[in-house]
């Protein structure tokens, strides 16, 4: 139904941060002094508005509001109206983006305090928030695509924020290019929808997608999935996400943990009516989710860079979410609940990591940390709660949301259900291992600090957001699963939740997962906590460790499969271009130039030759006409 009241003004959600970005980018140095405050204020205002909108939405009977804005593209049969759709699904995303976004903006005021380009940073952050909100609030695939590209741009700009560092510049390019691979899939999916259905709006597509042939629906589903994999760092496009940690840590927290990388999950959940019709595409989603879950967890076990471990953890956790939404109606709510909880604890963990780096002169090597719990009490406390939430410690948020996913997988009641459930349980054990390893290396053991490092707690402008996120990490799972059930809230989107026939009793699952988790913790203590951590990574390690350190050779595979053949192709094409195309073009140009000079000689300047030329022309004209008439 058409939006009324505050909901009609929900476009302000996007406009506010966008205006902030515009002011900061166009205002130049004049805005240096108060730019970060403006940037934060726009996002906080957007959060307040999002809360108000959501409250109003909750009171509506239909719980869905359309906001028509203007005609975006009108060309032939293609008619795209720019409009917003404020429904329960977009509402939770709007709240997550603006809520976590506000906290991270506040945190960044402290974190970026000494950076001369702080204003630019806030401008890009605002740009990101605006684009991300457009992505989740748009009412058509085209609007989603615009937002999708917008967040890609913001992500690129922010990864390369310290663009004078070659590593940051390279990482930004890598992220941008790998995302492009996914974006092509999304774009083609939209083309197919327009070609087959003549519309790109959610209402139009979902209303008529059932009329398409099964193969077409599967194709659309797989293409959308390709886009989702690119944005969310899922197999085979996962390699960019860990490198993206070259950006400032608040960026890693907001974009590469809490919000942007979950856009793929949003896309699949939003396209639920399409995936409901294609079990094949759903199976591929499941396979990718399960595979990525393991890849991320295994790689996370081997890295020494605190942000990279967290990044692989993100890859792995999004794998869980893909697994969940791939399960279909049974899993959407579980996946989204995990997404929200993950938004809290992962953002909190990244902010904590940022606080640690802040204390350690921007060092990221955990082998040079250790014994920090006494020096950084608040960071340790909040980070510890986030850690417990992530590994699924009983009654913290991860416990509820991850168990829900495992339950949904087992409820399939077939071999694949058991396989997927097993993978998810195994993943939980690995998660516990690598996160415990991270905790032990960072906060416990002997201090292995480099010379001249004097750890100190961060200012309260940084710790306050961490505390808020830690509180969220602790309670969000219980809130979303039992107190204020997400399944009820999302009912208008995904329909009434079916009464699950549990194959395995939830309590038993909880018990098993907890035991596996404790085994992971124990293993970490045995391998890491019990012994002295060497300051340099040992070189003689098992092949498994070596493979994990190389992220299971994802980069090597990419390089040998795509990059090198690509380079060969480029070289061949450059050769062809230089020799063949340029040769032809230059030859043609030289030929034309020569012709021109020769022809110019007919322009003698003498009237007599001009007149002769005209006479010749006249004879030809008359001759031609006579030839045509008589012939």
């Amino acid at each position, binding site marked *: 139904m058409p939006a009324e009241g505050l909901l009609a003004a929900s476009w302000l959600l996007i406009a506010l941060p966008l205006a902030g970005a515009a002011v900061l980018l166009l205002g130049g140095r004049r805005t240096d002094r108060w730019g970060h405050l403006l940037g934060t204020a726009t996002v906080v205002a957007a959060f307040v508005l999002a809360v108000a909108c959501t409250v109003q939405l909750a009171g509506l009977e239909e719980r869905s509001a359309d906001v028509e804005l203007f005609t975006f593209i009108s060309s032939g049969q293609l008619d795209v109206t720019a409009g917003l759709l404020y429904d329960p699904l977009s509402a939770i995303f709007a709240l997550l983006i603006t809520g976590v976004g506000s906290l991270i903006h506040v945190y960044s005021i402290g974190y970026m305090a000494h950076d001369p380009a702080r204003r630019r940073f806030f401008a890009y952050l605002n740009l990101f928030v605006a684009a991300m909100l457009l992505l989740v609030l748009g009412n058509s695939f085209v609007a989603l695509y615009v937002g999708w590209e917008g967040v890609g741009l913001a992500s690129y700009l922010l990864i390369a924020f310290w663009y004078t560092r070659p590593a940051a510049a390279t990482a930004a390019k890598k992220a941008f290019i790998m995302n492009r691979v996914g974006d092509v899939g999304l774009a083609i999916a939209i083309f197919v929808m327009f070609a087959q259905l003549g519309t790109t709006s959610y209402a139009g597509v979902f209303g008529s997608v059932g009329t398409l042939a099964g193969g077409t629906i599967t194709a659309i589903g797989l293409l959308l999935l390709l886009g989702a994999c690119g944005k969310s760092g899922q197999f085979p496009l996962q390699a960019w996400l860990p490198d993206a940690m070259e950006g400032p840590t608040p960026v890693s927290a907001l974009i590469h943990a809490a919000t942007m990388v979950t856009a793929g999950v949003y896309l699949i959940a939003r396209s639920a009516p399409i995936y409901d019709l294609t079990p094949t595409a759903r199976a591929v989603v499941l396979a990718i989710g399960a595979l990525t879950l393991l890849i991320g967890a295994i790689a996370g076990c081997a890295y020494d860079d605190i942000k990279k471990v967290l990044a692989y953890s993100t890859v792995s956790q999004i794998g869980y979410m893909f697994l969940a939404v791939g399960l279909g109606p049974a899993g959407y709510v579980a996946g989204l609940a995990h997404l929200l909880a993950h938004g809290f604890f992962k953002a909190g963990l990244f902010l904590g990591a940022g606080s640690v780096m802040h204390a350690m002169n921007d060092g990221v090597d955990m082998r040079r940390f250790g014994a920090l719990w006494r020096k950084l009490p608040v960071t340790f406390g909040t980070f510890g709660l986030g850690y417990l939430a992530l590994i699924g410690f009983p009654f913290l948020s991860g416990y509820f949301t991850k168990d829900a996913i495992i339950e949904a997988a087992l409820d399939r009641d077939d071999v694949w259900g058991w396989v997927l459930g097993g993978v998810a349980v195994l993943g939980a054990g690995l998660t516990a291992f690598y996160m415990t390893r991270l905790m032990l290396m960072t906060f416990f053991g002997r201090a292995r600090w480099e010379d001249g490092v004097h750890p100190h707690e961060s200012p309260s402008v940084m710790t306050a957001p961490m505390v808020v996120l830690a509180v969220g990490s602790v309670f969000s799972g219980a809130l979303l699963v039992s107190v204020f059930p997400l399944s009820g809230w999302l009912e208008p989107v995904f329909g009434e939740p079916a009464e699950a026939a549990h194959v395995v009793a939830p309590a038993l699952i909880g018990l098993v997962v907890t035991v596996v988790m404790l085994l992971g913790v124990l293993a970490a203590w045995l391998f890491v906590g019990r012994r002295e951590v060497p300051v340099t990574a040992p070189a003689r390690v098992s092949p498994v460790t070596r493979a994990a350190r190389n992220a299971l050779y994802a980069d090597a595979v990419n390089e040998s499969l795509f990059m090198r053949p690509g380079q060969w192709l480029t070289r061949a094409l450059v050769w062809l271009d230089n020799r063949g195309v340029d040769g032809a073009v230059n030859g043609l*140009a030289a030929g*034309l*130039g020569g*012709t*021109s*000079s020769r*022809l*110019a000689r*007919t*322009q003698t*300047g003498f*009237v007599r*030759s*001009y*007149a002769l*030329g*005209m006479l*010749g*022309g*006249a004879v*030809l*004209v*008359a001759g*031609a*006409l*006579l030839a*045509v*008439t*008589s012939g």
Partner: protein
Amino acid sequence: MIEAPDLSFAALAPLLLVLGAACAGVLVEAFVPRHVRHPVQVALALVGTVGALVATLLLAGEEDQVTAGGALAVDGAALFLQATIAGLGALSILLFAERGLDPARSAFVTSAAVPAGSPRDRELMVDTRVQTEVYPLAGFAIGGMMLFVAANDLLVMFVALEVLSLPLYLISGMARRRRLLSQEAAFKYFLLGAFASAFFLYGLALVYGATGSVRLSDIREAGVDGGGGVLLVLGLGLLIVGLLFKASVAPFHTWTPDVYQGAPTPVTAFMAACTKVAAFGAILRLLYVAFGTAEWTWRPLVYAVAIVSMVVGAVLGLTQTDLKRMLAYSSVAHAGFLLTGVLGLGAGGEGSGLAATMIYLLVYGLTTVGVFAVLTLVRDGDGEASHLSQWAGLAARSPLTAAVMALFLLALAGIPLTAGFTGKFAVFRAAIEQGAWPLVVVALLASAVAAFFYLRVIVLMYFSEPVADGPTVGVPGVPTTVVLAITATATVALGVLPGAVLDLAGQAARFVG
């Protein structure tokens, strides 16, 4: 006894206004004191041309008619082209009236009769007296052009041809600087123009001999098959030659570079814009009203001439080092593009070719006046600095001038979002609708070649080091500023929002008679 033909004065109003103002100008020349003559002449010429423009617009709603004993066809096409000529004429008059750029306060020689280089000439060189005969002369030329596009009878067409040509020959020779070059240009133009007029007249005689009439509709009824035969076809050929000369279509273009270069730049602007409109108006009328039923006879010929003109213009433009000569070859190439539009008209007058050609004439005229107006700004000690090398690095010294020039050049090259694209798109589409796609392919290739020499100027202005003792960029006075503002705005507006003018041309695209 000869009966007086019935005259519709309302339909003749645009013509009467322009020619009346020109006649009054002659009287002004004789009776008004010298020191107020210039403003009076300028005002009079502007009243005539702008009045004619307004009159044509007022007539636009009226029904098409043939008046003056059948000699004049006042129809949609005639009115649209008359309005175009009057408007472009008014802009040219403004360029003539510029007094702020040349140190001697005018682009025209004080006394054209004084031999170039004589002691008296040197004296007059620094004299600030201005010569005002150009205004009535230009007025007659504009009147002739407006008559040309409305002529419904070959004799009237011939008279109009002479009325428009003779003043042009004269004012081409009136440059203040480089007088010998200017006089040579005028003389060449006169000789070759007379030669071309002779072709036209001979063709007229043959057509009359074949059909017994000079009225376009009678010629159509007599028809090629109706016994006209060889005489009529030969006559058509010679008429076309005369008209193609005026339109500077290759191979009848040879005068164009020399005259464009030699004539005073405001006159070049006037010739390039208005003569082209008039000549194509006459070509369209002749081919479609008099020979529309015998399309098959001339279509292959026009096809071939269009290709020759596009190729010659584009290729020869490549090696030019003088901007005015380069623009002359560009005008030859554009004539070829315009012929593409002429071919976009179907046998019965259906198809969008007429509207497309008229649009093209309008945008080409506006852009051309604009580009020559910019040329008048860049000067060295010897007048306008038209050599390419002198324009190197101009953007660093005068960014606004360079930007406006770049806009006009992009429009001439037909880059989207400029008026030039609108025109090219219209004529090419019309030609494709009539199945002339091979011609359009050639036209696109020629456009690509021609784009090189337009873009070369832009590259030169923006990406070259400024020359040491480069030209100065003059501050234009009010008239040139007005011209630049109008033409630049129109070039952008017609490129971005061409809808209204396209509709107007579409409604006006009809012949009577």
